[in-house]
């Protein structure tokens, strides 16, 4: 008996009768005999719900969850309880894409509010209803700038981008006539002089420039002069910004960016082994028609009442077919709704406050690791909530000691990208980490290096 399949035997008979078929098998006679799957599917049989939960709980228990000081693109933040309850509303969860606006105003409005929140924190007015994740958002932004300038084919990308973003960019553009040129770092940041000479080399084929701040080392890139230089070279400026950092740090608009992208995981979503989250993308009005994916717009109904609707759909692949500039058909709707619930719960004060708390928490542990334990910074200078140290001690001892302490102390950056030196270790400290947890970290570090 399968609880999700509601038919009684009598109903099945009545339906077959109406159809004029003798059995359900008769409905599949159009499958050529040589192709038919004639044995049962080789999977264990169906299970009762409580047995399923026991199995899943056992699997969950096979994982070891620990105190997280690991970042590398996925962070452990305080999540207000309202987020899961509101995103758990059945009308949000079990709805499809809001193609019939009359009965989808809830989701349409929530996504409009998400777009508005992203516009506020980035400073750029046009945002969409989310993309798959930050890495694909960066790729889509590059596609936008390439398509916006005829005969352009070069995108300059900061060497300090997250390696996953680099990998996704590579995969996206491998088969197209596009050249990605990396801007090398100088001691963990990209210098303006590096940019200006690369802009000169790129010449007329330049489409744009992509930089991430905080970067893979956690360091804040100083983007003073960047947008002027990029615009003078007839290119467009894309900034990938950690959304939670925008409570305290300069917004992409303030840096003169044309497009802002990033990953929304820190805005009310758990680490969840890397997914799902959402990618955000925002731009100025001049690039509005190039914005990929789903976009919610405000309009009116026949009575003049304010109403929301999916708009610019001619942009979506399902209308332009072969000529689409992107094949994005969906968004991460429920994740985006979690994000806007989170930002609504925090408000501007909470948003600024959590941003500052991240800064001070990371600064605290960083100072202690340097002063009390004697470790060294790879990139001195300002960071948000993540910083990179040099750890030349035995890696296995470091990892094992912390494993025994029940702490994930950070991320070996070479695990993300083999070309990064093996002694670089990135540590993330969020507002969720308590003083006791920081003390435990220090004690464990001392032991690991003894």
């Amino acid at each position: 008996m399968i609880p999700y399949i509601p038919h009684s035997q009598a109903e099945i008979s009545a339906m077959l009768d109406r159809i004029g078929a003798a059995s359900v098998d008769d409905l599949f006679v159009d499958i050529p005999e040589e192709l038919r799957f004639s044995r049962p599917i080789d999977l264990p049989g169906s299970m009762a719900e409580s047995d399923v939960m026991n199995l899943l709980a056992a699997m969950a228990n096979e994982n070891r969850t620990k105190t997280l000081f690991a970042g590398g693109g996925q962070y452990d933040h305080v999540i207000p309880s309202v987020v899961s309850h509101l995103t758990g509303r059945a009308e949000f969860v079990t709805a499809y894409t809001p193609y019939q606006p009359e009965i989808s105003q809830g989701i349409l409005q929530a996504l409009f509010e998400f777009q508005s929140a992203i516009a506020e924190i980035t400073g750029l007015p046009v945002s969409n209803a989310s993309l798959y994740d930050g890495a694909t958002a960066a790729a889509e932004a590059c596609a936008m700038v390439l398509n916006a300038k005829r005969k352009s084919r070069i995108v300059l990308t900061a060497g300090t981008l997250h390696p996953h973003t680099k990998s996704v960019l590579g995969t996206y553009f491998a088969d197209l006539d596009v050249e990605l040129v990396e801007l090398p770092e100088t001691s963990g940041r990209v210098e303006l002089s590096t940019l200006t000479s690369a802009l000169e080399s790129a010449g007329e084929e330049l489409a744009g420039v992509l930089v991430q701040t905080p970067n893979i080392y956690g360091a804040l890139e100083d983007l003073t002069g960047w947008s002027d230089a990029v615009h003078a070279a007839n290119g467009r400026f894309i900034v990938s910004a950690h959304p939670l950092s925008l409570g305290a740090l300069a917004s992409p608009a303030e840096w003169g960016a044309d497009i802002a992208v990033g990953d929304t995981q820190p805005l009310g979503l758990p680490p969840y082994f890397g997914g799902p989250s959402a990618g955000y993308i925002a731009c100025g009005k001049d690039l509005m028609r190039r914005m990929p994916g789903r976009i919610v717009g405000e309009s009116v109904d026949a009575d003049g009442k304010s109403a929301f609707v999916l708009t610019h759909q001619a942009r979506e692949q399902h209308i332009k077919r072969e000529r689409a500039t992107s094949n994005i058909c969906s968004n991460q709707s429920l994740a985006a709704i979690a994000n806007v619930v989170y930002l609504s719960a925090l408000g501007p004060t909470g948003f600024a406050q959590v941003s500052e708390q991240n800064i001070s928490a990371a600064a605290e542990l960083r100072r202690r690791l340097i002063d009390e334990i004697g470790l060294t910074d790879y990139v001195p200078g300002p960071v948000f909530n993540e910083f990179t140290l040099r750890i030349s001690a035995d890696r296995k001892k470091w990892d094992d000691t912390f494993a025994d302490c029940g702490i994930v102390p950070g991320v070996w950056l070479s695990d993300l990208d083999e070309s990064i030196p093996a002694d670089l270790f990135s540590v993330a400290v969020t507002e969720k980490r308590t003083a006791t947890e920081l003390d435990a970290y220090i004690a464990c570090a001392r032991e690991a290096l003894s």
Partner: protein
Amino acid sequence: MTIDPETRTLFESSRPGAPGFRFPEADRPAEPESNPIPDTLRRRYPAALPEHGEIETVRHFTNLSRRNYGVDLGFYPLGSCTMKYNPKVNEDAASLQGFTALHPMQSDEDSAGILRLTGELLEGLCEMTGMDGGTLQPMAGAHGEFVGMKLFRAAFRARNQMNRTRLLVPDSSHGTNPASAHLAGFDVVTLTSGADGLLDPDALDPYLDENLAGIMLTNPSTLGLFETRIKEVADKVHDAGGLLYYDGANLNAVMGRVRPGDMGFDVMHINLHKTFSTPHGGGGPGAGPVLVKSELLPYLPVPVLVKKKDGKWMRDWNRSQSIGKASAWFGNTGVLVRAFTYMKAMGGDGLKKASDMAVLNANYLLSCLKEIYTAPYPGPCKHEFVLSAKSLKDHTGVAAMDIAKGLIEYGIHPPTVYFPLIVPECLMIEPTETETKESLDRFVQVMKELRELADHDPEALHHLPRNTVVGRVDEVRAARHPVLSHMMIDDRPD
């Protein structure tokens, strides 16, 4: 424009001074003495997020949800979307802390449970589809297609056959198919379906040369018809050196009856949010795992899930021929947990029964409705079928759109309309297996009443729905005068 205070946006209802969220006390100095952030890097203008207390946030979103329709409320017969019931035990499993609190950079030992879950999910999907391996990274069907197309390219690169640039798609295909192919650098050729709605293998003949990349198909097609000559198509493509891609959107029709791998497909994706009951969430997150035959295994995105001799699973990053990463981490893990839970609850027997009942439900509806509306392909069908309102429009002026809006008035979500493009005034109906006979009978009754209304008072249908929170929305205004965020409200035309 009138703005109802009940339905104001968060921004419009912002209340200055409202308390936000209370964070725990940080027992450390607020401003770090070491390495303070210089003003040049700080925000000059604060983000003007709206201010609300907790109860206001809760009421706002709760009320929003009440202005939205979902499968939990009623029938949702969207063709090719497979809006089946989303089991609640999936949600319980997905919220276990052992899953949610795991960081993706934790070791394989720390992640043993989730690696085993996703490994076994992949194995189960391969068994059901007749494929040899795959990746769970793609986050949606279109994403899966894109990865699939990249795998095609990788295979041709390895064979030194980069001249294979021509990809065939039927005219009934979903719009993402040619778009994904195009993005991967292929040239797309559209094949015209026969009068019976099926793909004629002879239509491939002009393209069976050394430039053929292959063909992208779904089976059954978007018309709900099984492509009976699929083996001929597969043989022709393979003999010419091409590959076949299967769009898994319609897999719910054939589980346990026929497998894409056995039909001759080399690469495919599954929409877990369709066939495997994970919720649509208003448009996402979903998951579009890609499965492949052995020729393409070397090119899969990294990391690849591998089962070790001791029975535990690991992430293998050591794949020199991999196409790289398709997305940042390992896929939408929360969605994968739900799909696994469903697979376990259903078992092999349940999955077959699901397809059986999905096809039964669709044929039942088709038999009832073809007497009332025009059915271009009168049956039998698989899990979905199409009706055409063209003749209705010609005689009464009532179009597919009006029928859709009429259904809304009766509290039923409309089917897919105006797709596939080859059927004029198309309604594509997919009931799924989780719908009761009673629900289907009600749908037929409503469709009958709408037909009668079309015959006697067509004008009435043009103004429906009337009993929803908003009526038909002016899409032209939305496109001509875009207001896409609160920051753009000055662009309102009035």
